[in-house]
């Protein structure tokens, strides 16, 4: 088992759940929460065939690590987050949050806060590819500092 904390949080291609679940559950922890985001086949009524994830790699890596550390400090849990870059097919995993904590209350809160923060504070852009051959960048939200959220 490699040391997960030392690996990049930004990965080329779809994420594999098992890669992000290799760490043992701490003996003091009673709850494991996982959230994974996947590519849907429909968006605002349009049939989607896949998604490209573009990133400012340096800043995105920094921000993902900041979010991990902020989640741990705020909620008293262990956190691992990761995001995919590149082309993903329907059903593939674009983002993963893993939280290991004492009880489920803080586990759910930490997991929700981490994914909500990723969506607003990490410089990654979704480009949707439609069945009709068109492609479009999704509307986003102006980037926020991690600690403001």
């Amino acid at each position, binding site marked *: 088992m490699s040391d997960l904390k030392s690996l990049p949080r930004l990965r080329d291609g779809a994420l594999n759940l098992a890669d992000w679940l290799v760490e043992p559950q701490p003996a003091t922890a009673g709850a494991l929460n996982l959230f994974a*985001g996947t590519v849907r086949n429909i968006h605002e009524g349009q049939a989607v065939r896949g998604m490209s994830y*573009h990133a*400012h790699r*340096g*800043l*995105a*890596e*920094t921000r993902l690590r900041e979010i991990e550390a902020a989640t741990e400090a705020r909620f008293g849990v262990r956190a691992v987050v990761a*995001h995919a870059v590149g082309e993903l097919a329907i059903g593939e995993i*674009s*983002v993963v949050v893993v939280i290991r904590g004492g009880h489920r209350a803080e586990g759910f809160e930490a997991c929700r806060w981490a*994914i909500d923060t*990723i*969506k*607003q*504070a*990490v*410089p*990654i*852009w*979704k480009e949707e590819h439609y069945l009709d051959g068109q492609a479009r*960048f*999704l*509307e*986003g*939200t*102006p*980037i926020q*500092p991690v600690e403001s959220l």
Partner: protein
Amino acid sequence: MRVTVECYGASARWCGSDAITLDLADGATGNDALDALAARYPDFAARRDTVAIAAGDAIASPTAPLADGDVIALIPPVSAG
């Protein structure tokens, strides 16, 4: 002085290029660079106020002065997840 602007996400569409070179007056700031882009690209002008600037691996203040040879990045509204 000369500054390179890297255009991330949809900002490359708004400006028609992944990277743009701007000639700016000495002492120009990030805001001055955004103004120059807005003057040149109407699609960018419409979104100017939603865009942040990064320098290296950090968000930069738009009021900080730039230097000749600087590279800055346009960070349009994000859609991670």
